[in-house]
């Protein structure tokens, strides 16, 4: 019988611990598929961050390092600099990457560190039970913005992809979403490409993946997907913000 669907080699058989309706599982699978499609599982070192996805190392079936909160791009830099022919990626949430680790990600991009960053943005701190993130939308109610995020107190949510895309060192920057099957397939392509950029030694590549947190958003899973489409996508527009320069040219 022909196999039409199976677990990627790059995923372990451990069941995901993620909450019902959380899209981390989908995104893990997309990363694993990209690793399989590039056939790099034995040549890849991943870096897990702090947050719900700290346990990414339980699921992604390659060599992994778990890093301190926000420091994954620095840890990945250390690995890549001493093992330049290995594929190195980080998997980070928005609290990790856009808040406590904003320095590390900006400088990894500025150096055009030849790594792949998977940035999962669900506009909230999930693991610590729903605090406001730097990416939380205006008006969004969280444990630490109970009346809704307001400009006067909390300022504006950060568009990381747009910000990093201003850096010449950022070779590939894309924002994708997971709110329906069509967008999941687009996300798959972007993640594949972000590894491809590294494979071709074209420099820093990041895919921002819009994601859900139904439990901390206080929504049903379906409602959460709709919320991504109706509220996150308008503030965080999808698409490729930067693609690598042509061979022999520097990034603009």
């Amino acid at each position, binding site marked *: 019988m022909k196999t039409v669907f199976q677990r990627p080699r790059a995923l372990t058989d451990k069941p995901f611990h993620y909450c019902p309706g959380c899209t981390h599982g989908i995104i893990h699978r997309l990363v694993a598929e990209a690793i399989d499609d590039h056939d790099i599982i034995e040549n890849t070192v991943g870096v897990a961050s702090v947050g719900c996805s700290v346990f990414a190392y339980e699921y992604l079936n390659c060599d992994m390092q778990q890093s301190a909160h926000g420091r994954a791009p*620095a840890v990945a*830099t250390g*690995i890549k600099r001493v093992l330049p022919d290995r594929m190195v990626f980080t998997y980070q949430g928005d609290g990790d990457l856009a808040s406590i680790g904003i320095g590390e990600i900006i400088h990894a991009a500025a150096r055009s560190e030849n790594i792949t960053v998977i940035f999962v943005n669900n506009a909230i701190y999930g693991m610590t039970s729903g605090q406001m993130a730097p990416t939380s939308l205006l008006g969004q109610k969280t444990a630490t913005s109970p009346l809704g995020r307001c400009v006067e107190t909390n300022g504006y949510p950060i568009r990381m992809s747009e910000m990093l895309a201003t850096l010449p060192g950022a070779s590939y920057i894309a924002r994708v979403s997971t709110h329906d099957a069509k967008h999941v397939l687009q996300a798959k392509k972007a993640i594949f490409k972000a590894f491809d950029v590294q494979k071709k030694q074209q420099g820093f590549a990041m895919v921002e993946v819009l994601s859900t947190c139904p439990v901390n958003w206080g929504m049903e899973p379906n409602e959460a997907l709709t919320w991504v489409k109706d509220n996150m996508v308008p503030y965080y527009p999808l698409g490729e913000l930067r693609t690598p320069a042509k061979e022999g040219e520097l990034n603009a």
Partner: protein
Amino acid sequence: MAKILMKGNEAIAEGAIRAGCKAFFGYPITPQNEIPAYMAQHLPEHEGVFLQAESEVAAINMVYGAAGAGARVMTSSSSPGISLKAEGMSYIAGAELPCVIVNIVRCGPGLGGIHPAQGDYFQAVKGGGHGDYRLIVLTPGSVQEMADMAREAFYLAEKWNNPVMIMGDGILGQMMEPVEFANGPLPPVDKPWATTGAVGRPRNLINTLDIMPESFEKKNFALTEKYQRISEAEMQWEATNTEDADLVIAAYGIVARVAKTALQMARDRGLKVGLIRPKTVFPFPNPPFESAASRNIPLLVVELSAGQMVEDVRLAVNGRVPVHFQNRMGGMVPGPQEILDRILELMDQGGGQL
């Protein structure tokens, strides 16, 4: 091999390169700037990686990544920078990764000043970062020792899979002395746990997280047991004229140099003064202090701090003999006469029977 005139900071860097250091990640801070500058110039000549990080925090996490990937790696900084690295040091110790961290100590607290001090003893020896962990801490007393201890630091780090700190001070880092590099590179060490890509083996994981108390407690006890074995195996000290002494000075680093001159001045006056110079402060060398206590010899601890190593000396002698203390702070260093005056004061008081 001929001796070379070098700054202490350069001697550490050259010693590290010769030992086989292959990666350096650091951030500018005085008074250790010669180390990254030397590494930037010379490490690439030896197929090594030099990278100036965007912060102390990033630098220590780059060390974590590179150490986890199996590289012989180091960083250096000075006191305020070491505070920033403390989080990373806790992770590195927890993940049991070998690396070398240099602290060319300046005075604090806060931004303090750029002059020499020993106020980071507690931070280096008792923790600094969170959780139960230990650094192995080496305290050089000369430029030659800075070169030698750079090599030894990598040896110990790889022997115990533990971060090792070389704790110098602003004078040792900046002063020049003749130095000889007699030893070759350390032999390569097998690191089967390193994340180098899982070719023909199960995947490797470098991790410090364990949310199950039952298993994490086992990890804590295993670390504790390792630190105990390190304590038994790796104590180092230099004892000078302690056999017949009526008073023994205890000092490390640059202060021990001054104390040695004071000791000679005292001996010239017929006063039997000895010196214990710890070369490791974790593990703390208890035996020479126990020996002094068992012979009822009082101690004078001299430090560039408000009184930090003196606590370990008091623990070592456990109340059996008086432990006196003399200090300067804020970047000030006692001269030999100042220490001699204290020796005279103490010995006059007690007439050798303090």
